[in-house]
């Protein structure tokens, strides 16, 4: 951090004699000083610049100015203010709500396409043969690298962002569903067969429920990735949203808003995870207990 409260005091600005005429600082606080030296006083450290001006540095404990790190109370009061009167023409809840909406929409479509795709891959060799290479290649591509392509395809609007999140969720969900299917213990399928179940019944009563725990694990990961991705997408092409809020605030060096935004993003990310874990516990209680 270079900016700080150090200041250079051009001492001759208000004096009649100027440095050019030979006036020189010879002592500060009763201690003699010459160019290049520095002196510590209770108020801070003084030194002479090569031009003979005084450079003053307050004790470093004081160096943290609000633009670098605002005090917690500033962040809290900013939260109150923005919650009440909004930021950039949208309330705080609108910003957060927009981000959340995008995440949920993107995730929803990703799951809607990804889960059946994963099932198809797990059950049919034909599907696996075609889609395995695609899925395996797309997985390590960071979703954010797709932003430029999505901008070209769908612009910077809502559609583009949701497509991006869709792509972020799609592969994760497909892989989760695939491994959910292939993780079915063959003895469960055999048991169902010898109890007289048909293929469709085995799909419905054995394979689908058995893959739910994996799908939930995938969903937790996908939601985390989507949340991180939406924030970044909003940074790049900022409209409404939590990411835009902190990005714009950073341009105006409103550090308290930036920190407030980061905290809220963290809290919501954490909240999403808690929620997913809760849903998992309620909906697939047998997980990791079988």
């Amino acid at each position, binding site marked *: 951090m270079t900016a700080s409260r150090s200041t250079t005091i051009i001492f001759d600005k208000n004096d009649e004699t100027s440095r050019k005429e030979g006036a020189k600082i010879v002592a500060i606080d009763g201690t003699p000083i010459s160019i290049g030296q520095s002196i510590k006083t209770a108020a801070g450290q003084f030194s002479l610049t090569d031009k003979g001006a005084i450079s003053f540095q307050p004790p470093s404990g004081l160096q943290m100015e609000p633009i670098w790190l605002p005090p917690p109370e500033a962040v809290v009061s900013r939260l109150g203010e923005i919650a009440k009167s909004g930021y950039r023409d949208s309330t705080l809840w609108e910003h957060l709500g927009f981000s959340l909406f995008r995440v949920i929409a993107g995730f929803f479509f990703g799951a809607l396409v990804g889960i059946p795709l994963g099932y198809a891959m797990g059950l049919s060799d034909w599907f696996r043969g075609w889609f395995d290479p695609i899925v395996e290649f797309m997985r390590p591509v960071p979703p954010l690298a797709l932003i430029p392509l999505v901008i070209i395809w769908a612009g910077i609007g809502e559609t583009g962002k949701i497509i991006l999140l869709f792509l972020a969720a799609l592969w994760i969900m497909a892989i989760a569903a695939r491994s959910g299917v292939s993780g079915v213990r063959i003895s469960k399928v055999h048991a169902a067969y010898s109890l*007289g179940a048909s293929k469709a019944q085995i799909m419905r009563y054995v394979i689908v429920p058995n893959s739910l725990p994996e799908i939930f694990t995938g969903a937790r990961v996908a939601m985390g990735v989507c949340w991180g991705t939406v924030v970044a997408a909003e940074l790049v092409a900022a409209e409404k949203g939590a990411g835009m809020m902190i990005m714009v605030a950073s341009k105006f060096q409103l550090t308290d808003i930036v920190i407030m935004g980061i905290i809220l993003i963290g809290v919501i990310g954490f909240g999403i995870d808690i929620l997913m874990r809760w849903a998992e516990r309620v909906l697939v209680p047998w997980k990791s207990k079988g």
Partner: protein
Amino acid sequence: MSGLSIENISMRFDLPNGSSVQALKNVSLHLKEGELMSVLGPSGCGKTTLLNIVAGFLAPTEGHIAMNGHKVHGPNAERGMVFQQGALFEWMNVRDNVSFGPRMKGQRASQYGSHVDHLLDVTGLGDFKDKAIYELSGGMQQRVALARCLANDPDVILMDEPLGALDALTREKMQGLVLKLWKETGKTIILITHSVEEALLLGERLLVMAPRPGRIHKEYRLPYADMGVNADLREVKKSEGYSQTREEILSMIWDMEEEIMGRTEAAQ
């Protein structure tokens, strides 16, 4: 010819590396209706493979299975299977697991209800109907597996080490239950086990298999199962000849296993 016939079954697995394993070779066997046969043998001698063929999960390379004189193919509700563990449906409660077979046939609760409730009572699960599978102890889970199989009223029950994962005490209790159900329902049963004691106590007939290729090594006819239906199993163990047969079979299997182990340790 009533009962289950295993007719000259051979099974060869082709491995991805081009070689193949002869898991079973010319195994023939006939079980009369209501017989309980236990099967022993060292690891890898083809016990599970044999059971899977009888159940219809695997098609043998040669030979076939016949029920009451008719060839059968593929899995079917007439041949029920009880697995060691992990074959229950955790996403259903106890009652839904047990009623799975009837429900898959499209029966309604009113049709199968009393039968299923009866089975739950017989297996001592009456108070646990609505429990989730993971809330049960290992012994109770095996009772659910048994009840689920019985609810479908199969002619033959196939069991692959059903009690292998249970602790000594629970296992002993379950052995009593199996004997009781066998006598009461008159099912034909094949029971695979690794425990010589269990094979002795439960099998009317006892088959010892040998590996490479998997084949029938020796067969015994035993009185203990019939005794065990009425007497305490611990008493049965003290009966004449029991200890001696036990030692004989133990030595037989140990010799086979030592031979296999010797080969693999040397290969290490």
